[in-house]
């Protein structure tokens, strides 16, 4: 599992989406999330799903790979959905299916649960596609560029981006280190797989202490190396990779604008999410 983290989520491929400007992709993801929350009925969400499928095809990432990333948050989605099922109260007595003390299950609760789960699912899918098609480095480049206006209020944008890219850069290194230390302690008979929660947590001490020591050592080395190359912050620094906005990004933004417009129209013409109840209950 640790190896999954090592490369971030990035799935290397040559595709329309991979080639897009990271800034455009970040903006698109935010707009995509807006579209998800704008949708008031299932038709709107269906439009969002269609859009998502189109993007996955354009990104040339296998569907299984995208779904695998969602698997990790599946528990959270299910948990939220179940809470909603039990504690969502219906206005109409007719729609109540089951009741026990203060817990009720109504048609509204079921619909609401499905709607919420679908929304969360789509939200994770959308952001996953961003991290699958964008390397962490270009992602931070994009964020730095998008945050540039904040420099006017003296927000340390460059420093923030630097911290982010260093943190990202160190994930694979520290993952490697962790794997090595785990192997070394296993060779000395350490057991990480059995026992209860407390025993397992204690078993991690022989891994965490050396890891922390090595992280500090590396941080010092990196600081020295940056000093040695006369690093002095953002002032006068140029970029190795210049971000360029191309026709792909324009097309992407147009498509998403189309999606939002479509969702709004569907909202106006097809009512709210609870209308479907009418199909089941008179």
């Amino acid at each position, binding site marked *: 599992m640790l190896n999954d983290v090592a490369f971030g989520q990035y*799935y290397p491929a040559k595709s329309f989406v991979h080639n897009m400007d990271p800034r455009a992709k970040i903006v698109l993801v935010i707009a995509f999330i807006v579209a998800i929350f704008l949708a008031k009925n299932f038709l709107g969400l269906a439009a969002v799903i269609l859009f998502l499928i189109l993007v996955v095809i354009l990104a040339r990432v296998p569907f299984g790979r995208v779904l695998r990333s969602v698997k990790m948050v599946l528990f959270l989605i299910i948990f939220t959905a179940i809470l909603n099922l039990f504690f969502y109260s219906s206005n109409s007595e007719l729609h109540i299916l089951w009741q026990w003390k203060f817990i009720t299950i109504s048609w509204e609760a079921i619909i609401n649960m499905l709607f919420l789960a679908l929304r969360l699912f789509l939200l994770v899918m959308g952001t996953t596609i961003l991290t699958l098609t964008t390397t962490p480095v270009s992602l931070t480049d994009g964020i730095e560029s998008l945050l540039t206006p904040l420099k006017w209020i003296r927000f340390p944008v460059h420093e923030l981006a630097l911290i982010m890219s260093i943190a990202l850069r160190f994930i694979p290194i520290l993952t490697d280190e962790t794997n*090595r230390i785990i192997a070394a302690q296993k060779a000395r*008979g350490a057991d990480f797989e059995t026992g209860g929660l407390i025993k397992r947590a204690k078993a991690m001490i022989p891994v965490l202490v050396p890891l922390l020591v090595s992280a500090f050592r590396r941080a010092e080395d990196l600081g020295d190396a940056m000093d040695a190359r006369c690093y002095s912050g953002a002032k006068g620094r140029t970029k190795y990779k210049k971000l360029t906005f191309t026709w792909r990004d324009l097309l992407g933004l147009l498509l998403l604008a189309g999606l939002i417009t479509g969702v709004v129209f569907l909202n106006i013409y097809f009512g709210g999410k609870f209308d479907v109840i009418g199909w089941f209950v008179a």
Partner: protein
Amino acid sequence: MRIVAEGLTYTYNPKSPFASKALDGVDLTIEEGEFFGIIGHTGSGKSTFVQHLNALIRLTGGSLHVGEYDLADKKCKFLELRSKVGMVFQYPEYQLFAETVEKDVAFGLKNFRKGMSEEETAAAVKEALETVGLDYAKVRNKSPFELSGGQKRRVAIAGVIVTKPEVLILDEPAAGLDPLGKRELMELLHSIHGGWCKTVVIVSHDMDEIAENCTHAAVFSDGKVVMCGKPSEIFARADELLALGLDIPVTAKCAQVLKARGYAVDTDFTCDDFAQKVLALWEKEGGSNA
């Protein structure tokens, strides 16, 4: 314990774009009693191979027997195996964690020999620390982090040999040590080899180290064993080693130069033997025209 690998295959990150084949059908036998050297450049699969030997990497293809342990068997007692096959990683000082040297060295014992009395543990720790050349009374209550680099490495090695493994594997044990440290380390390995430690396996880039110390060696390249035998046999094929991008010992370099000038030296490539053979050759050739 005899180590027999047949058709050992291993792939990192299988079924992903990052898949890389580290081992591709490794057949290798290491007999009990050998001082075995594993040679190969970075990424040749040597580290992956040695991590199979104590089941740190689980077998996925081929077969591997270490003594009576069959590593393909899911019921194999891996913990017991690990106590008999000690493994010293590259830069082992980075695995130190406990508050005192004594506790750190005892870590392996506490894991492998549950129920061992305090006195027995202390005695074993003392013996291990003395074996690696440290003064037990002086270092036992020190924090491992306040020791020097060389001392840290000794403590780390003591932490592995404290269980007296029959097979001791060391991955680049001399990396980062000064010449004196290297020499002392090799002396240490020879002093334990032949006692409770029957077999020593070292992974190394340093050909002189292999030529001087090992009884047998194998050369890894691209996940395969391309040469195997006594160092004298391997280094006699110096051209092939150079073609693989590997180095050869100084003695082999000298032998090559001498050969180019028409003098064939039949040596096993240890410094001692090389010097003797060259002297003998010199005397035979008259010796006076120098």
